[in-house]
């Protein structure tokens, strides 16, 4: 796993942050939009947004007097890519397990440990 992937997983490893990322629409949302419906304070939401921003999962944009938060699909792609790589590694390992079982005759072969 890369340090970048670890940061993305870290950023996503919290239910509030997952909710925040999931609720960001294509046009972005302000802190007020995001705080609505949540039981935590604006300050709390801001703290979580900073973690998500550091993880590269969201970005902010100033629009007039407001800060609008947007999703960064590339951030999520890092997490997905890391899991895909780990999944691909397991696929290869399972394939070797399959070959070991299916190619092995009762006599001892080079595959024995």
């Amino acid at each position: 796993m890369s340090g970048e992937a670890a940061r993305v997983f870290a950023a996503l490893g919290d239910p509030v942050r997952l909710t925040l990322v999931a609720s960001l629409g294509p046009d972005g949302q302000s802190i007020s939009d995001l705080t609505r419906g949540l039981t935590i304070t604006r300050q709390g939401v801001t703290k979580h947004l900073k973690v998500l921003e550091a993880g590269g999962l969201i970005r902010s944009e100033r629009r007039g007097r407001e800060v609008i938060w947007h999703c960064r699909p590339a951030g999520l792609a890092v997490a997905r890519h890391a899991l895909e790589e780990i999944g691909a590694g397991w696929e290869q390992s399972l394939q070797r397990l399959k070959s070991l079982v299916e190619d092995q005759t009762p006599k001892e072969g080079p595959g024995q440990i």
Partner: protein
Amino acid sequence: MSKDQTDSVSRSIVISGSPDRVFRALTEEFGTWFQVRLEGPFRVGDLTKGAMTMHQVAGLPFKARTVALEPPGRFAFDWPQWDFEANRNLEDEAPWTRVEFTLEPVAEGTRVTVTESGFAGFTPSLGARLLRENTEGWEFQLAQLKSHVG
């Protein structure tokens, strides 16, 4: 998006052979298919160590704590993540992920499903530390390279 999408990864395969046979290969012949030289067998609660023999990662340490060894249906262990950039084990600073194999009989033999989970357990402070240590790790590697070459 759900937590599951970033917390776990799962793959499965169907193997021609009974669950008993597949379970034996999975556990007793783990070293052969996973490509690692183990120092001992898997025992629930125990740490099993070894050295990878897979060519891309040959020599890297392998370490796993067995969580379940229930023939012929389930085998599970926890293991630390390896940071490939810094080329080091994250056993002390990151949560260990869980690897779980389930075996079920199917018409063609046995379906083996492996699920690795716990990726969402990485904490923000860890993320920051990883970033810093990765940088230091590379500096160390470069210094090693330099002394090796020079």
